[in-house]
């Protein structure tokens, strides 16, 4: 970073290093001692990107952790969207003042490694509650690079199809038999628009996470956006073109979807307000939608084209470099607590995120809740069709390139094939440096 200073300032740099060393020694020692006396203070950054009062729920869990662990004091900071949070963490890491723990996208792993920002959690003593085999395998595979575990799945998700059972009934359909294919979805959408109060058949938000839900369409068409490694992506394929053409057609030719970029944050409210009969959205919005909707809500697998398919998604907890060892140890305790089966069940029941622990899904609490809200099981069952979310070097930038081009296609500024060609070119221009 400070190349400008490198000419003839070796001495200055050495002094800085010495000073930093001295500071670490001075600060690190008391931190260890303080851990026995008063509490270790941890900073924790987290984003919110689905519907519902998630900040409040998160604060409640952190408070309970602090109560249960008087020697650790976690200070939770809400840091905006995932993108904002990643930016904040990057800023903090650059300033050698990273948070102790952060929830970032699971797909940020490669970027965090490129930044040299994180430490593998597998370097720490696992402890009884941390059992890798008890995590959903579809999520745990995203944590692995070079045989190490780099983060812990926390608020993981997939997109699912939400539908309005009343609207389906009004359209003469069986409310327990939602559309299973793209064609059925379009046909049913048209019927509901005529028969029910729903103004629109379906909403597929593209203002944020367009790349994510679009990836599902590509997987369903028999391909994927992820390439052979973290420096290659396959955007410009016949399958992707087919998927994007279908998506654009929903509003342009089939007229079952509003004709502009649909807002990610507002779409769940549109659905629970009855404006649209079907909604593509994260399972993390489930509880908020259930509590807001005044009709019976159904959830289903994303309809298939050639096959069922979905990417994994959501956030994991990361541990950072440049923190005193006492903090890292305490942070690891915090992460284990937050991702233990009891908390995984609690977080999932409060939000709709998929329980990351297999034992959670077998707990009495969870099984009882399914009797009330069987809708929560859809995402777990859909995991068998899941592939890893679009990830690689510069994943934030790559995801944005995909988002921008999908938006351009949806709003009619580019033909689907051109949009994907542009996305491929822009991505390749960035990624060639990593090959």
């Amino acid at each position, binding site marked *: *970073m400070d*190349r*400008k200073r490198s000419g003839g300032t070796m001495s200055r740099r050495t002094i800085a290093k010495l000073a930093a060393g001295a500071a670490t020694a001075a600060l690190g020692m008391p931190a260890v001692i303080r851990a026995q006396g008063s509490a270790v203070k941890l900073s924790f950054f987290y984003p919110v990107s689905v519907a519902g009062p998630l900040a409040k729920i998160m604060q409640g869990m952190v408070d309970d952790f602090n109560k249960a662990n008087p020697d650790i004091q976690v200070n939770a900071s809400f840091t905006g969207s995932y*993108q904002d949070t*990643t*930016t904040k963490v*990057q*800023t903090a890491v650059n300033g050698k003042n990273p948070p102790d723990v952060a929830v970032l996208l699971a797909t940020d792993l490669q*970027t965090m490694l*490129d*930044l*040299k920002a994180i430490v593998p959690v597998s370097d720490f003593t696992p402890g009884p509650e941390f059992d890798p085999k008890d995590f959903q395998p579809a999520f745990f595979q995203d944590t692995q690079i070079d045989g190490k575990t780099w983060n812990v799945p926390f608020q993981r998700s997939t997109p699912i199809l939400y539908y309005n059972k009343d609207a389906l009934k009004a359209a003469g359909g069986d409310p327990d038999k939602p559309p299973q294919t793209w064609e059925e979805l379009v046909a049913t959408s048209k019927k509901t628009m005529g028969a029910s109060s729903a103004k629109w058949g379906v909403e597929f938000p*593209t*203002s944020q996470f367009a790349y994510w839900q679009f990836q599902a369409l590509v997987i369903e068409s028999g391909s994927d956006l992820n390439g052979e490694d973290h420096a290659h992506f396959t955007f410009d394929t016949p399958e992707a073109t087919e998927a994007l053409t279908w998506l654009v057609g929903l509003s342009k030719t089939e007229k079952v979807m*509003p004709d*502009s*970029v*649909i*807002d990610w944050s*507002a779409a769940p*409210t*549109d659905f629970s*307000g009855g*404006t649209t009969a079907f909604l593509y959205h994260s399972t993390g919005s489930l509880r908020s939608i259930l509590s807001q909707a005044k009709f019976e809500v159904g959830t289903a697998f994303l309809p298939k084209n050639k096959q069922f398919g979905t990417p994994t998604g959501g956030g994991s907890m990361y541990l950072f470099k440049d923190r005193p060892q006492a903090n890292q140890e305490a942070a690891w305790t915090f992460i284990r607590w937050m991702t233990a089966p009891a908390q995984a069940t609690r977080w999932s029941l409060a939000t709709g995120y998929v329980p990351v622990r297999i034992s959670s899904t077998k707990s009495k609490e969870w099984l009882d809740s399914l009797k009330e809200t069987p809708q929560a099981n859809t995402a777990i069952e859909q995991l068998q069709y899941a592939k890893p979310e679009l990830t690689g*070097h*510069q994943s*934030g*930038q790559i995801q*944005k390139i995909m*988002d*921008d*081009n999908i*938006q*351009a296609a949806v*709003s009619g*500024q580019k033909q689907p094939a051109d949009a994907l060609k*542009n996305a491929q070119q*822009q991505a390749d221009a960035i990624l060639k*440096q*990593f090959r």
Partner: protein
Amino acid sequence: MVQSETARAAVPVATARTSRRGAGALIPYLLILPGFFFVAAFTIYPVGSVIVHSLMRQNLAHPVPVWTGLTNYKDTFSDPIFRQVLGNTLLYVVMVVPPAVILGLIFAMIVNQKSKVASFLRTAFFYPIVLPLVSVASVWLFVMTPEYGLLSKAAQLLHLSEPALLRSPSTALPALAIVGIWRQTGFYAIFLLAGLQGIDKEVENAARLDGAGPVRLTLNIRLPLLWPTLVFVITLAMINALQTLDLVYVMTQGGPSNATNVFLFHIYETQFSFSNTGAASALSVIFLVMIGAVSAVNIFVVDRLRGEASGA
């Protein structure tokens, strides 16, 4: 005013103090030092520093900076997103500055009267300028949000189709421009009001006696006398519009499809989201050149015009 006055002031400045020698001669430097230190450290030094950084490659793939000459500039100018960003920024300036200045002039004329209505209007027109831009963005985000927003409500009442201004690439930037105009017009009106009030009443009265109506009075008398103030306000409005960020950050995050991605937002995302210091530095230098050019006009040309207008 800068040039002329420093030249004029050189004469009377000589005081007892100048004759001192030795330690006393240091006093002016010591007085200037504290402020100058911060100006030097955070305005002058960073200009040099950002130029140097713009000539080096430094990004996530190559964390160690390496000299690359003008590569960052070449890459920037050939990047389609940069062209879009530049276009958006200039388009925003064009959409905001003329309406804001013209409306500001109209406001100033309306408010430049003594009546109950005028004083109500003064408050109504001028209050947005003290609101933090971020809160202005929150207000308008809500006004423009589909379904719940005020605009949607109005459309529902009139049975029109509901607008989704911020969701379509063709309307998002104009929507931001409306907010920019709403917030800034009063600000420019203040300067123009001061300019109007500075016009010699005798000149206006003489013109009136010659039979000039309000339109002729404005076009033939007021506008020429206001010219320096107008140039000042136009350049100021351009500088402000070029630096738009807060509205974009809160209302659109540069979307949809980069339709509202403006210069500062692009610098921000390039550095802080994409970790590309070399490219972000090159962008900053290009931006500095643009802003610096307009600022120079603002300071030096306006200065000269004022000098001419006052006959100095």
